[in-house]
């Protein structure tokens, strides 16, 4: 399988034959090898894969942070290579490392982000106040970010990605490294943001997260999409193909799709190349 194109609405994210090669010391590294996908407006779309599968590279191409070797991609109807600034106006990005400036306060960071997206100083200050309330950081708003906990940083990063009310929000492993309580808080935020009409493109290594949050998902492995569909569709397909008695989990789908074997450690799937 190589594409995710079974949605019905207008495409909020669209990629065709997307390829990314890096020149490494030992030759060319093919990080992404022809990804086709289409995400409908209003969806929460999950993009799963093992470490090094090409998730972050794909997201970085879709968000204009990486050049595209070949193929094409658009977000909110805008070609990311041809009109990068227009694409940037329509997307919000919260990357794997919460991209925050530790010397600023939460409020200063959000005001600056608003100014960078063209808000006046007054508008930016008002919007910062709204977002601090949304992510429940009002009490910490005027403290320097370096004193924030991991969960607070993630929520602030999420708020900074929303400052210009983007049509599409890219979240690259937004809960990696968070404790279970902070993870649940971020999930609630994602649902709330999506309920307001924002399309969410979420990469994650946590299959439970994908199961809980995503309307549809794709699994990428070694730079290629190897499964696609809604979580129930993917589970049903595996059950039928393998003739299983019980309903498989998304873990089973993931392991089947990526050719890995199971070993559970502390509640998470430990990947072992089979």
């Amino acid at each position: 399988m190589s594409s995710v194109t079974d949605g019905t609405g207008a495409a909020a994210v669209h990629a065709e034959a997307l390829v990314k090669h890096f020149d490494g010391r030992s030759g060319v590294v093919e990080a992404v090898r022809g990804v086709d996908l289409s995400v409908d407006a209003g969806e929460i779309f999950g993009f799963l894969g093992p470490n090094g599968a090409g998730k972050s590279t794909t997201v970085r191409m879709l968000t204009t942070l990486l050049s595209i070797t070949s193929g094409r991609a658009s977000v909110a109807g805008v070609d990311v290579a041809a009109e990068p600034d227009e694409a940037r106006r329509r997307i919000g990005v919260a990357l794997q490392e919460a991209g925050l400036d530790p010397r600023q306060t939460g409020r200063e960071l959000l005001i600056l982000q608003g100014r960078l997206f063209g808000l006046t100083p007054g508008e930016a200050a008002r919007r910062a106040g709204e977002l601090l309330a949304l992510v429940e950081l009002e009490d910490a708003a005027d403290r320097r970010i370096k004193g924030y906990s991991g969960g607070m940083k993630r929520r602030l990063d999420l708020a900074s990605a929303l400052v210009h009310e983007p049509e599409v929000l890219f979240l690259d492993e937004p809960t990696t490294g968070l404790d279970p309580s902070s993870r649940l808080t971020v999930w609630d935020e994602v649902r709330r943001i999506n309920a307001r009409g924002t399309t969410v493109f979420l990469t994650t290594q946590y299959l439970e997260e994908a199961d809980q949050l995503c309307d549809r998902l794709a699994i990428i492995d070694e730079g290629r999409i190897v499964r696609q569909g809604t979580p129930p569709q993917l589970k049903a397909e595996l059950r039928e193909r393998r003739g299983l008695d019980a309903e498989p989990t998304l873990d089973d789908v993931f392991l089947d799709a990526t050719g890995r074997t199971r070993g559970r450690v502390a509640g998470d799937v430990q990947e072992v190349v089979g």
Partner: protein
Amino acid sequence: MSASWALGQRALREAWRTPEALVPTLFIPLFFLVVNVGQAARIFPSATTEFLEGQGYGAFQLPSSLLLAASFGTAALFLVEDIEGGYFDKLRAAPVPRTAIVAGRLIAELAKGLLIAAVLVLVALPFGITVASGPLGFVLLVVLTALWSVVFTGFMQLIALKTRSAAATNSGGLIFFPLLFLTPNFVPRELLTEPMEVAATFNPVTYVMEALRSLILEDFDWGQILPGFAVVAVLGAAMMALNVRLINHYD
């Protein structure tokens, strides 16, 4: 312009909140001023040394200290922190001109350069150093020093963008450092040995140093002053173009 100014304000807050990064830029140039004057002042007594124009050797040495103060490039290390922490990607994902991403930090560097140069000159005044070109000359002296700090930091930022490493940026800065000393640092260019004179003539820093020195030792000598400003204009334009090109091709 508003994006540049917003990013400039952020960089100024950053500098204000890390005073420990500013202290060496004041202390080390003052230290070298004292040491160099202490070592050479008796060789060049003001009464018999024509190139001092009646002032002490400290006045001749002050431009070296000003250029040293303007050549720390600490802002480039803040840029590396942004890159390593992911904030630089946040900026790249915003619809701001790439020139604004470069200019934001350089605006703050200009402000810091103005402050440091003014403090250094004001500290030097009670020790008998005067600015012969008067108050306007003082302003030009401070502005030219600050512009050099912008240019130098811009080149350090190129290393930061290319290597994305604090250690490499620090080491890379040492490549530029000899340029400060391949200049008429201790005596005028015509008194240098021939190889040094040739090196100094090809070194753009020489013209900045001679412009600064001219403002301190003489009334306005535009033949000396303008080449200094021309050097920072040309190098500044090249630095800005190279920075923007690197950010545009940053993968």
